[in-house]
């Protein structure tokens, strides 16, 4: 197995040119996430409407390619979807990272599934799982209105 399994084209692309990396206008909820062991940081901004639909989502932060790509892919995947659907997607995503299984989430297009699956290589790199999940946990935290910083060492 090759290191390229971890750093797939899609991951590198999103790592280098993260989408939605800014403070989105009119966000009404946000949360910070921090991995104290390696210093990765994200700040997720969310515009959630009354029906809990994610009208807009963006992030700021700094970290490794995996964490930036994961945040970027997350924003692209979640924008426009219901919070409940997003949580389901996260579940599948976590399962994939843990089991290395394939993704075929019904609510996602094939392209979206493939994009998410680009991170499946993380399974073989246990120390990097936190990099891949930080943005996601921070998103949930933001949506649920938490105040404290998400800390991966919790």
């Amino acid at each position: 197995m090759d290191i390229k399994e971890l750093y797939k084209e899609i991951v590198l692309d999103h790592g280098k040119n993260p989408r939605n990396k800014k403070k989105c206008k009119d966000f009404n909820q946000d949360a910070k996430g921090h991995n104290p062991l390696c210093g990765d940081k994200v700040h997720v901004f969310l515009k959630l409407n009354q029906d809990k639909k994610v009208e807009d989502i963006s992030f700021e932060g700094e970290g490794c390619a995996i964490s930036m790509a994961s945040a970027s892919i997350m924003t692209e995947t979640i924008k426009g979807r219901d919070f409940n659907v997003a949580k389901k997607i996260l579940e599948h995503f976590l399962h994939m990272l843990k089991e290395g299984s394939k993704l075929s989430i019904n609510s996602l297009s094939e392209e979206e599934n493939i994009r998410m699956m680009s991170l499946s290589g993380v399974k073989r790199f246990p120390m990097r799982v936190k990099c891949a999940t930080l943005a996601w946990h921070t998103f949930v935290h933001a949506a649920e209105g938490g105040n404290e910083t998400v800390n991966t060492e919790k």
Partner: protein
Amino acid sequence: MDIENIKSQFPIFKNKINGKPLIYLDSANSSQKPKNVIDRITKFYSKEFSNIGRSVHSLAVTATNRFEETRDLVKKYINAKFREEVIFTKNATEAINLVASSFGEKFINKGDEILITELEHHANYVPWHFIRQKKGAIIKFAECNERGEVDIDAIKKLITNKTKIIAITHISNVTGAIMPVKKIVDLASEKEIPVLVDGCQGAPHLEIDMQKLGCDFYAISCHKMYGPTGVGILFAKKKWADILPPYQGGGGMIGEVKKNDITFSDSPTKFEAGTLQTAEVVGFSESLKFIESIGIKNIIEHEKKILEYALETIKKNNSVNVIGDPKKRGSIISFTIKGIHPHDIATIFDEDGLAIRAGHHCCQILHEKMGIPASARASLGIYNSKDDIDALSSAIKKCNKVFNN
């Protein structure tokens, strides 16, 4: 149970002491180590060593996993609810110092009372003495009765509205008395007073279930549990682990570090500053496996049988005075022999390869109470047999011979 087989797992027993086979009756001081524990340490250093939690490379990942798996094993073994409740320290002494310092700084003020007992080991008194000095607090000592126990009433009558914590031993390391911890916890929780249990002698010899005991803190000394030196464990209920301030500062336990302020991570990391006792903790996982391979119930049963035989045997000797007569006794018998100082006893025993401890056993308060400066102590481990007790009995007779003719 096949004690010879169990004993054969401890390399130390292959050695001769003064030309004699080693008879080890000093496990309350520190237990011997089975081969699987020793081998685990060797393997860790030879194949897996790296500093944990800090690097991304494979060795570090493996080492971190082995370390954290041990935390999970401990959590399971003591039946803690959360892994955040299991904090590794360098010994039980540090575990108690951590609580005395972190809890004491935050919750104990001038005039507040700390309730301990006359049975306590210095490890469960000196740290509270520091807080007494710093905060102007008061330490109350629940009285030990003639049986060498502290009964629940002795504690009850000292509880006041000023009592901020109760700190008691699980088993006295001198009289062997098993304390009514559950009852004390029930009593204390009526008044919402936290209870710290010094479990040094409890953990190796009793079933340890944090849910059943219900205590707030429990301190364990791994080297008395067939484990390596250099590791202790503090169980701290999540509600305390969450709010207590950190104890030592350094790498690993921080959140964000700025020039004007610092935030900290959560338990257990918050309490584990600097490079940990990695190899020792990993080695301890094998101690738990060793104990579980025999079964703590079987250990208790075996030790009980040997203990009863020992009491019976040595009480037959009129020159012997066994200290205390607790209703429930752990694997410890302290005694004196008329006209012979405990140090002389230990020296004479040693000539026959018999290792016991003589002294005040870090319990000066108790010894003063009993009016003796020192005592001899025989304590059991899973490797002891009735033969060891027979040897003890002969050695006592030899003491009498040396001194009386």
